[in-house]
């Protein structure tokens, strides 16, 4: 179908003004040898047909299971006011606010976003947003490399492995090595190993730890930060924003840089994107932060105004000397987070974090009661690992019972025998007691029949999607 406004008469009029018979002449610069003759694509569809096609595809995804899957992306209640605001065309269909006189809506909301994230993280300088938590983490580490003029980065292995993989991709062309810090027996980052790594070899630019870490555990952030600073390195905290309603903010334990995934702040999971990369730093590092920043100023009549600022750091001005090539940000996702935080306020956000923690404790007890105890003993907030024999097969079997039993940690750590029999599970305020019972009962049943079904791991998973084929 066409969305274009032109009638055949309109086109004829424009051609007449140009003194042409057809548009062909306008493409004369395309050499004959490389001219395409149309596209081998399906025929146009009516709006109804495309809508049906989308509905059918969406229907083949399964989002109806009781889900305990988090691992960096979390389901939350999104107040309806959020989508109502974000859907407004004045926000959704504006461009980057290069003309501040007619972009104050976008500019003020970005300033508000920066302010809200500054309050959550305890760090004063907040980027207008990055692509996602993984790229924000990589950019955060690269900031530290520039600021310290050092080339070594130490990262806890208990940062989500997709984040570490992204860091490797970003670091490799610069010749930077990513050195992984091992876990101690309790699942937190081994600080003795950190101390040794800082004391030997080349000077370290940055130390990266996750809070909570990839196993849901709370890390000794202040101790790690002190060790890093003692060796002249910067400390980078990789955080989950809802948790900051109840956990110490990175600025309080000495983080110089903070990165994280902002999706939990009112953004739907969307199979991974678009999401919201959070990146914040201390004032001392202002000039190292990549991406757009919005600042306050006045117009010529003295009225308060907001404008993109410190622009000379960016690629469109600095070109090959820019710290990053980032241009597009995630402004609409940042607006989503801003509306979400405005709608919840401090009490609402704390309730979300605390209710998730309470549900997680119920989940822990229910799973322990059916033979799936926690893998680690240390404190956690709303996500934790449980020990389940033949975890991957059990996970698959539970899908048949309508339970998405978190993430088999073998998927992230295929070479670690200690994690081969572990599931990473989470709860949020959406997790109901009924879902927890369904998980526990299902797990009990699967474990009971497990011995009779040794080939469960290989069994195909019958789902609506599979059956439809």
């Amino acid at each position, binding site marked *: 179908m066409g969305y274009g406004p032109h009638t055949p008469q309109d086109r004829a009029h424009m051609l007449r003004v140009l003194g042409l018979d057809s548009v062909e002449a306008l493409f004369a610069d395309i050499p004959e040898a490389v001219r395409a003759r149309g596209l081998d694509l399906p025929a146009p569809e009516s709006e109804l047909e495309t809508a049906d096609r989308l509905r059918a595809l969406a229907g083949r995804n399964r989002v109806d299971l009781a889900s305990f899957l988090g691992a960096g992306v979390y389901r939350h209640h999104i107040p309806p006011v959020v989508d109502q605001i974000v859907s407004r065309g004045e926000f959704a269909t504006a461009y980057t606010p290069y003309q501040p006189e007619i972009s104050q809506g976008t500019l003020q909301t970005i300033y508000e976003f920066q302010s809200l994230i500054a309050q959550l993280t305890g760090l004063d300088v907040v980027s207008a947003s990055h692509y996602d938590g993984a790229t924000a983490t990589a950019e955060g580490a690269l900031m530290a490399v520039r600021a310290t003029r050092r080339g070594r980065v130490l990262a806890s292995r208990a940062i989500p492995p997709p984040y570490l993989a992204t860091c490797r991709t970003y670091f490799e062309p610069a010749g930077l090595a990513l050195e992984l810090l091992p876990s101690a027996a309790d699942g937190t980052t081994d600080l003795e190993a950190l101390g040794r790594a800082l004391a030997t070899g080349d000077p370290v630019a940055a130390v990266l730890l996750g809070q909570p870490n990839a196993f849901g555990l709370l890390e000794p952030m202040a101790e790690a930060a002190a060790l890093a600073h003692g060796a002249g390195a910067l400390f980078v905290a990789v955080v989950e924003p809802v948790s900051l309603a109840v956990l110490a903010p990175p600025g309080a334990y000495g983080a110089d840089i903070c990165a994280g995934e902002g999706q939990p702040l009112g953004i739907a999971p969307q199979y991974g994107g678009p999401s919201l990369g959070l990146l914040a730093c201390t004032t001392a590092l202002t000039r190292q932060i990549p991406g757009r920043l919005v600042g306050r100023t006045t117009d010529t009549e003295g009225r308060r105004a907001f404008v993109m600022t410190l622009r*000379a750091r960016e690629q469109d001005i*600095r070109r090959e000397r820019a710290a990053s090539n980032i241009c597009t940000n995630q402004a609409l996702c940042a607006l989503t987070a801003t509306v979400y935080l405005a709608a919840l306020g401090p009490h609402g956000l704390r309730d979300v974090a605390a209710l998730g923690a309470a549900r997680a404790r119920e989940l822990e007890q229910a799973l322990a009661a059916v033979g799936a105890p926690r893998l680690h003993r240390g404190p956690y907030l709303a996500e934790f690992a449980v020990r389940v024999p033949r975890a991957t097969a059990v996970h698959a079997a539970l899908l048949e019972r309508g339970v998405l039993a978190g993430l088999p940690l073998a998927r992230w750590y295929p070479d670690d025998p200690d994690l081969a029999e572990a599931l990473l599970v989470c709860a949020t305020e959406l997790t109901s007691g009924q879902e927890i019972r369904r998980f526990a009962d299902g797990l009990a049943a699967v474990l009971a029949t497990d011995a009779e079904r040794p080939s469960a791991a290989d069994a195909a998973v019958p789902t609506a999607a599979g059956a439809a084929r």
Partner: protein
Amino acid sequence: MDVPDGLRYTDDHEWLRLEGEEGTIGITAYAADQLGDVVFVELPAVGTQLEAGKTLGVVESVKAVSDLYAPLAGEVVAVNEALADHPELVNSAPYGEGWMLRLRLAEAVAADGLKDAAAYRELIAAA
């Protein structure tokens, strides 16, 4: 455009004021005007050894950025700390309070390779 006599000038629109074995460096009024409102000046630390022709820092305006080059080799003995809080001095007094740094020159004679005021006036007239 103001081009004071008695200073030396580079093709990159910097000026050098020779004072014995030392030289003070800044950017010209022409350069400041071309850049527009200067908002940030990044300078090397005192003690840094500079090679002639190499980048020593950066001047940023609202919508442009320009490298600073060392006109001569030498050691940085002072930088203009006032520019950190008042970068606008580069626009208001490019040859005075807007100076950038002072070098102890490694080889004073090489200054002969720099332009005098008359030659620099010709350069910007042709631009």
